[in-house]
């Protein structure tokens, strides 16, 4: 099977090259048959990468340890589900998986546009296949996933235990889908630049793809945070690690794009800016891949030093130079149809939101590459840690949430103070009240007080938008409240879906602020029967249970949670933090135990355990409101689905849906 896989990637690479040449030549000579040949190459490319993935999966599932990849990332005792996840658990497999997703997207794009956008499509095909060809070239010439060993080991070295977690099985695919689908808007942007068809067609065509990509980037980031939270055992979910930053940066620029693109659709402004954001987002996904695989920023965290770095760097340079050159060449065609009329308008709020988002992306980028830059400039490596990112981004995040609240209440074109005051008086009052309550409740962290007030402001604005819209429908259409609300959302999916996303963002924001500002920590070594005190809780160490299986040895601490209520203690829960020992890679891991409520999480780690004395060291954390992060994430996902859902008009005649209700910007 692996020989077939190997052949498939070699042929896939050649087919991609042909597709690029055929598409470009076809566009140049206006030769329909050549363009059609390019399209066929795109389909063939998908089929060939699918065969390659199937071949690698087959090798994994049949546990063919003669294949280097299989021996390195699986074992005889690895559960089937994780064996499938091993497909993207290693670098070679992840590159193949990436190429496969790209190929599938490419085929979907080809199919969707089989009768549309004929001027753009040859370029789209060429761009998508170029990216695909780059990735396959790495697999064909540099790092072969089907490489065989000179001998056959009886056992594999197993998948990294840290990856043997359910979040880890869905986190990488989500992130990859998010990363890869940014290629679609990018390809269309380049096609628009190359063909000179710079109307709004490319934006309308890729709007749903951009949302789809954003959806998966959001989920990918949140799943990654969830994984870090439940697996790494340091009580947090985000450490501003280069890998996390690499996934966060394209999310930021993609978010900026989704906002500024509305201004282009509505006002014909920001055309160049949107191009820049699309190019930036795609480049950042490649940069992220580069970062995690090159070893350039390996100083602090151990990534592979695979020697792929220069290739990615070169590819990135080509992308940036080529797309910026095209952009500059087409600048005369990208004039704005309108100009901003007032600095005090919704357009300006959108612009400001874009600046802040790109500003955050820039600070994250700066902090991530700082060691490299400082080494070039001052020949000494200087690193910045999480405090840097937190300090810089906290005020920016507050500003962002504030703008999220201001957006819906400020008028388009030109707002007056009086109108703004009328629409934002209620929410502002709610915000001040919330701030006062938090302050009266004893919080003396002013950042948190301000952050909660601003979040309340944004949430109240959203709530009143839903309320007013629903009431208006009730009055005009004589509908019941629920019918009115669901129709309100259904008829303005983009606007109200966006608001739902904003509600989710505010929830995530609250969760992040509360859990980072009001976190409580405790650490103690105790004998059986003794307790660790943390906040209002007592954690009593009741004993140890050992569970010895063929794959993993588990040492499980039995801990009962008691809550102090006045003088008396009452039992409320029990937690079972573990130490695990994975037998194949001979690696110990720590398994945290979390008792989660809407008010906060009690996060307990078995830090160390001494079998002789039965002494156990526990680390415990109280993370207030942290679960609102996950709830907010679900709300964001829901809102995105509402936005993406096709409108009735689009469902009945997909080609004719031009500027229907769905594409109207929030008014």
């Amino acid at each position: 099977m692996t020989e077939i896989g190997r052949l498939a990637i070699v042929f896939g690479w050649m087919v991609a090259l042909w597709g690029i040449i055929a598409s470009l030549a076809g566009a140049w000579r206006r030769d329909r048959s050549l363009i059609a040949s390019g399209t066929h190459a795109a389909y063939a490319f998908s089929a060939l990468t699918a065969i390659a993935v199937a071949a690698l999966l087959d090798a994994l599932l049949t546990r063919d340890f003669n294949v280097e990849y299989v021996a390195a990332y699986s074992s005889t005792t690895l559960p089937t589900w994780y064996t499938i996840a091993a497909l993207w658990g290693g670098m070679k497999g992840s590159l193949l998986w990436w190429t496969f997703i790209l190929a599938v997207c490419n085929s979907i794009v080809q199919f969707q546009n089989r009768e549309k956008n004929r001027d753009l499509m040859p370029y789209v095909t060429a761009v998508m296949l170029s990216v695909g060809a780059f990735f396959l070239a790495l697999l064909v010439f540099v790092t072969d996933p089907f490489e065989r060993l000179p001998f056959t080991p009886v056992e594999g070295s197993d998948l990294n235990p840290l990856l043997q977690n359910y979040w880890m099985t869905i986190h990488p695919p989500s992130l990859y889908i998010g990363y890869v689908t940014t290629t679609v808007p990018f390809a269309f942007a380049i096609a628009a630049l190359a063909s000179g068809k710079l109307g709004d067609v490319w934006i309308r065509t890729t709007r749903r793809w951009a949302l789809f990509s954003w959806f998966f980037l959001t989920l990918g980031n949140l799943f990654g945070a969830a994984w870090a939270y439940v697996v790494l055992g340091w009580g947090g979910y985000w450490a501003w690690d280069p890998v996390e930053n690499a996934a966060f940066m394209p999310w930021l620029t993609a978010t900026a794009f989704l906002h500024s693109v509305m201004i282009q659709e509505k006002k014909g402004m920001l055309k160049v800016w949107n191009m820049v954001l699309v190019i930036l987002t795609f480049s950042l996904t490649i940069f992220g891949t580069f970062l995690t695989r090159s070893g350039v920023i390996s100083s602090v965290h151990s990534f592979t030093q695979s020697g792929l770095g220069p290739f990615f760097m070169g590819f990135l340079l080509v992308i940036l130079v080529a797309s910026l050159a095209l952009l500059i060449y087409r600048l005369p065609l990208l004039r704005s149809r309108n100009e901003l009329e007032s600095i005090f308008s919704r357009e300006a709020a959108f612009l400001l939101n874009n600046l802040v988002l790109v500003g955050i992306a820039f600070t994250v980028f700066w902090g991530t590459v700082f060691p490299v830059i400082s080494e070039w400039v001052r020949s000494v490596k200087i690193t910045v840690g999480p405090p840097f990112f937190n300090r810089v981004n906290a005020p920016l995040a507050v500003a962002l949430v504030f703008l999220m609240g201001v957006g819906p209440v400020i008028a388009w074109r030109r707002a007056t103070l009086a109108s703004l005051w009328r629409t934002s008086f209620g929410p502002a009052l709610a915000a001040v009240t919330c701030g006062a309550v938090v302050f009266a409740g004893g919080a003396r962290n002013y950042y948190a007080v301000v952050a909660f007030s601003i979040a309340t402001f944004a949430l109240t604005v959203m709530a009143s938008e839903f309320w007013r819209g629903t009431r208006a429908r009730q009055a005009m259409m004589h509908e019941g409240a629920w019918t009115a609300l669901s129709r309100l959302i259904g008829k303005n999916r983009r606007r109200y879906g966006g608001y739902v996303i904003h509600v989710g963002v505010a929830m995530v924001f609250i969760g992040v602020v509360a859990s980072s500002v009001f976190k409580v920590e405790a650490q103690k070594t105790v004998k059986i029967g003794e307790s660790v005190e943390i906040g209002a809780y007592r954690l009593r160490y009741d004993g140890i249970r050992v569970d010895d299986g063929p794959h993993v040895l588990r040492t499980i601490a039995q801990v009962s949670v008691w809550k102090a209520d006045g003088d008396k203690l009452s039992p409320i829960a029990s937690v079972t933090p573990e130490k695990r020992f994975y037998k194949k890679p001979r690696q110990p891991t720590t398994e945290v135990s979390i008792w989660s409520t809407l008010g906060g999480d009690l996060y307990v780690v078995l830090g160390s355990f001494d079998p002789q004395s039965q002494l156990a060291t526990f680390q415990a954390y109280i993370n207030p409101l942290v679960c609102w992060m996950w709830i907010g994430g679900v709300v964001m996902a829901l809102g995105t689905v509402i936005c993406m859902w096709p409108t009735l008009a689009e469902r009945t005649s997909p080609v004719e849906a031009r500027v229907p209700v769905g594409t109207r910007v929030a008014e």
Partner: protein
Amino acid sequence: MRALQRAPPPGGGRCRVKRKTKFLAGAGIIVVAISYLIYSAARETSAYYLTMDEFARQRASLAGEPIRLAGRVTSGSVHWDPKTLDLDFQVQPIPPKKGATAASTLEASDARATSAAPVETLAVHYNGVLPDMFADGRDVIVEGKLEQGVFHAKSLLTTCPSKYEAEDRGAGEAGTSAPKVEG
């Protein structure tokens, strides 16, 4: 469509110029604010990142500075008291890797230069739970300050020359990392 795009933007004259200046000033303020945030935060939170070799050469000048230091735990030097969570050990330079890639050749050549000299070590003190992967001979990154000849580490990370999935995310106190699957 074309015609629309090429149409000259509405509005004109001095009013437009004035407005444009205003917007540019607004954008400028934001850029300056973000730059200031970056500058001040970087100044207060940055730390030198040094390998043990580099550290050994400029030891005297580094007392009291925030430092991130990469080194290897000296065999037999680990003292760990589970009751008080006090951990003491020595670190020494990480020897050059076999088949080192471009990224690490610089460090490698540094190490070769000092290999003739006796191995330089540094005492490290840390209080907290042992990371899962901490052991004799492991490569670690400690973050903290040098005080009276002892490196007081606020955080302790274990790393290893590893593969792609050793995405060491645990930058917290009890950092964890991947197994040493290949040499």
